[in-house]
């Protein structure tokens, strides 16, 4: 049940990342357009920095869930690597717990920011007069996806911890192995790894520990 949910979240978070990437390209073209128009005609479309800022906040918040589900979050593993697998599993769950607490705190306060802006229909003080609740709504959406992923993965890991199932914890929340780090850095194996990851989810877990 939770495993299915995790798979769904993975799918959603991947679409969210693509959407975020599209926002980045959009921002790049918009800024480039503004720069070219300004350099050649002396006029300015205006607001490209402001819109880019909103797109940055939204695209990053939409990608948070993906970083969690792919265990990209940086951890200091100098001591971690010295420990045995079961102690590592306990630390994995602890790390996830702290991240969940922080992620939920951020989301909770972000909702506060959105509700406030919406209740006064607050506008940015720039010439654009952007109603802030609009970008903040999409920003909060990303944080909600992040929070949902945190809670589900944490629940699943706690269950695995109770079952002394270190392999599952490693798969869900373990520190990444060097091999994975580099696949990430270079994406040489992205296209190959995607179905592979799905398989290992369904199976008893990968044996890279």
């Amino acid at each position, binding site marked *: 049940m939770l495993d299915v949910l995790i798979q769904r979240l993975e799918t959603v978070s991947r679409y969210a990342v693509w959407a975020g990437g599209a926002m980045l390209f959009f921002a790049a073209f918009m800024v480039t357009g503004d720069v070219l128009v300004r350099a050649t005609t002396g006029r300015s479309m205006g607001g490209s920095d402001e819109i880019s800022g909103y797109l*940055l906040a939204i695209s*990053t918040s939409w990608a948070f869930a993906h*970083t969690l589900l792919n265990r990209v979050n940086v951890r*200091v593993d100098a001591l971690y690597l010295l420990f045995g697998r079961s102690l590592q599993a306990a630390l994995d769950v602890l*790390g996830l717990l702290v991240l969940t607490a922080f992620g939920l705190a951020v989301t909770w*306060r972000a909702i*506060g920011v959105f509700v406030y802006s919406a209740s006064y229909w607050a506008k940015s003080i720039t010439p654009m007069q952007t109603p802030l609740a609009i970008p903040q709504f999409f920003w909060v959406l990303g944080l909600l996806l992040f929070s949902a992923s945190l809670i589900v993965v944490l629940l699943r890991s706690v269950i695995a911890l109770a079952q002394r199932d270190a392999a599952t914890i490693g798969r869900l929340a373990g520190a990444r192995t060097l091999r994975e780090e*580099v696949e990430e850095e270079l994406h040489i194996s992205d296209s190959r790894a995607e179905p592979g990851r799905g398989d290992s989810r369904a199976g008893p877990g990968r044996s890279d520990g």
Partner: protein
Amino acid sequence: MLLTALAILLGLLALSVPVAAALGMLGLALGEIFGTMPLHLALGDSFWQNGIEFLLMAIPMFILLGELLLRSGIAGRMYASLAQWLSWLPGGLMHSNIGSCAMFAATSGSSVATAATIGTVAMPEIKRHGYNERLFLGTIAAGGTLGILIPPSINLIIYGLLTNTSVPDLYLAGFIPGFMLAGLFMLTVLAFCLVFPKWGGVPIATSWEQRIKGLPYLIPPLLVFVVVVGTIYLGWATPTEAASLGVVFALILAVYYKSLSLAMLREAVEGTMKTTAMVMLIILAAIFLNFVLAFIGLTQQLTQFIEGLGLGPTNTLLVIIVFYLVLGCFMETLSMLITTAPLITPIVVALGFDPVWFGILLTVLLETALITPPVGVNLYVVQGIRTRGTLNDVIIGTLPFVGTMFVMLALLVLFPQIALWLPAAMR
């Protein structure tokens, strides 16, 4: 208060809690313990106001730019071309590694992207030409760090933002030290290969005809450099806008080289977003932590402590350098920059040092941190590309270059003009 903060932070990090969560929870905890006000309520505004900061847009843009250049084959062709020119030196391709890193650094704002890109194209050559593997790995790990010193540079943009220092000045100031450090790296290779000629491997065959033929492959990276740096000085774009121009230009290059496809874009986007979100979470958490530290007065306490040491400018500077070298062994560089620059820079400037010069010195310290164990991201990246042997090979091979960095630091302290001459000359 300072001890509590340090104990919580080191404890969380030692337990391998994700860095972003460790910084954020430290902020929340210190706010609970020492803040007389409900500081956690500021978390949302802090994340929003800084999350929409246009200057931070440079981070995803430079990462995206690097992804596109790697995937359109431009990096590989540049490496092959430089190899023709540099590999006659004792040390062979190791000089090309450093040269390519320096050149790629002129298009990319990130050290990790530089090491990963050049590492990928260089690694297959180790076996083929019989190099000393460790030193070869060292040239990539160390050469990659040039990514943040030679403009453009994410770190210099963020330093400029945090300390109100002119980014164009910082870029100009990074230029000479950047290429000088590349030269020092090459000298290091040369020295080792003159003493141990076998380390230098078998020279690759080349001819003047081949060299000339390869030259056109250096043009695309130079064009990217002109777009992401030149447009700033032409008065077309601000440093942050220039990063966006670079992305659009890289797309055009990808179209020209017929390597643009939906699959390629998708991979580039996934890689970019993962790294960006991970880095942004750390940055936003660190900024919230800074807010709490300043609010509870710890910032001021630390400043007063260092000023109270009464060591005088030179000794204080030495203490700060040692502080960064030690911290750099254990901390990720971007979080280190964000948590310390707003605290340390005012002290240094108050002592009479130039903020632009200190930005460059700090960047070299951050470069050192990238290759000092146990936490040295570039070491990880290089070992990762290699996927065999142990991390120790990379660490040992990189050590000579850590020594070279110390020489560079000493030169910068003794001759600040290395950094300051160019910005002054361009006025």
